[in-house]
């Protein structure tokens, strides 16, 4: 997929979120283009998760605009969609991968049903075809077909995260939000997940916004990155440029703090 389209998928301008007098994120503007993966990096409390939640309409910002290009090509203000339109968007065109898989999965229904549920939400009714598609997606995230009837409670952390990804991608969304998708996983499990995500994003031509505090995750997954500190974007550019030639004092500190193995 080439990101060379003439319209962005998402346009964010002057977005701010205050919690009372405290700044969540302030004056954020950027555009996301089809097929682009944007990483938002920064420490805990830098505002990156607040920003992600505002973009995904999980939080309503204090000020600013976010418009999204719908499948019919029209740019729409995402905070002015009707509840029905917003839910349709969340269930089909968008995905949200939580750091904790339990927040994005139903832990007491089977793996197959977790994936199938999103398909039913978009109107798929044929049981055989739902099950077939679900099993196919479990395979794509490297979950064996004989686990399709197991509940995610019985899965390891890495498997749960892969299941959450399958649940999100089964409806072929155009935009996926990810909040620390590899956080809390063992390093070897992280590597496998990253590699899988990278392949899926490239194959499906997805756009994604990935919040992470891990610069290695940003390096592997993203085309562009934004560095946040105290609620503001302090540096923004091509991922390898920001990591190899960081300009802002804080970015230089972040990059120099990576442990070399």
């Amino acid at each position, binding site marked *: 997929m*080439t*990101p*060379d389209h003439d319209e962005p998928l998402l346009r964010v301008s002057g977005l701010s979120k205050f919690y009372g007098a405290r700044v969540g994120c302030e004056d954020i503007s950027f555009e996301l*283009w089809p097929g*682009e993966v944007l990483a938002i990096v920064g420490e805990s409390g830098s505002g990156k998760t607040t920003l992600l939640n505002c973009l995904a309409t999980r939080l309503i910002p204090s000020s600013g605009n976010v418009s999204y290009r719908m499948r019919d090509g029209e740019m729409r203000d995402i905070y002015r969609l009707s509840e029905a339109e917003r839910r349709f968007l969340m269930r089909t065109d968008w995905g949200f991968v939580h750091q904790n898989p339990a927040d994005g999965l139903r832990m007491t229904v089977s793996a197959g049903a977790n994936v199938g549920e999103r398909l039913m939400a978009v109107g798929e009714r044929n049981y055989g075809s739902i099950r077939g598609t679900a099993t196919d997606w479990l395979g794509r995230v490297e979950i064996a077909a004989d686990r399709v009837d197991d509940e995610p409670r019985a899965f390891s952390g890495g498997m749960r995260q892969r299941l959450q990804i399958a649940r999100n991608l089964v409806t072929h969304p155009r935009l996926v939000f990810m909040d620390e998708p590899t956080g809390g996983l063992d390093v070897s499990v992280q*590597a*496998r997940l*990253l*590699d899988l995500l*990278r392949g899926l994003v*490239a194959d499906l031509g997805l756009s994604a916004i990935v919040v992470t505090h891990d610069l290695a995750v940003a390096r*592997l997954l993203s*085309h*562009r990155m934004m560095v946040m500190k105290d609620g503001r974007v302090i540096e923004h*550019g*091509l991922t*390898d*440029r920001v990591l*190899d*030639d960081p*300009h*802002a*004092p804080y970015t*230089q*500190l972040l990059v*120099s703090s990576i442990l070399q193995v």
Partner: protein
Amino acid sequence: MPTPLVVSEVAKTFTMHLRDGIELPVVDGVSFALRAGECAVLGGPSGAGKSSILKMLYGNYSVDTGQIIVQHQGRLVDIAAAAPRTVLGVRRHTIGYVSQFLRTLPRLAALDIVAEPLTARGVAAAKARDKAAGLLSRLNLPEKLWSLPPATFSGGEQQRVNIARGFITDHPVLLLDEPTASLDAKNREVVIALIAEKKQADVALLGIFHDADVREAVADRIIDVTQFAMNRRVS
């Protein structure tokens, strides 16, 4: 044939904020043009800024002042000022880069790493892999390694994967950062031949070669980087 790449008055200084904001001047007044079908070589001692120049041309380092104009899909793009997604497009179609070291992805097979620049441009996977296999065998990488991730390969084997990946496309501009550093004589000869074929195909090449034999064999001219050096760092 239009000039594929023109560099004019490019300057770059690193500011080290963690060390009281000291400034490390790298280069100043870098100006040259690359012609299609030639291999120009950046010359000068270690630390003169050769690698930094290549990295600026690729958009990997930012540019403080000056312009880097490239012919990209029928229009002119200034890499020094282009938006990230424009730079990505230039990398996909116009400027290729063979770095010194392979940045390996955890689980990808060597063959797929080599094929990737083609598949990223929409070439069918089977065709891309065929071409990748052809290059790896020319570079004498044992076939039993092709399906393995290169993380455990030797330096020379990794570099050959890297070279194959860099040479597989028909990018009109190719940047080479010491592609032969850890190769034996036989494989250096292969790289020299690959460079000659790129010249035949009207590719503009710009390289850094510390190995004098390779430099002699491929260079059409030397661009002396010391003329762009600002007052050197320490010294």
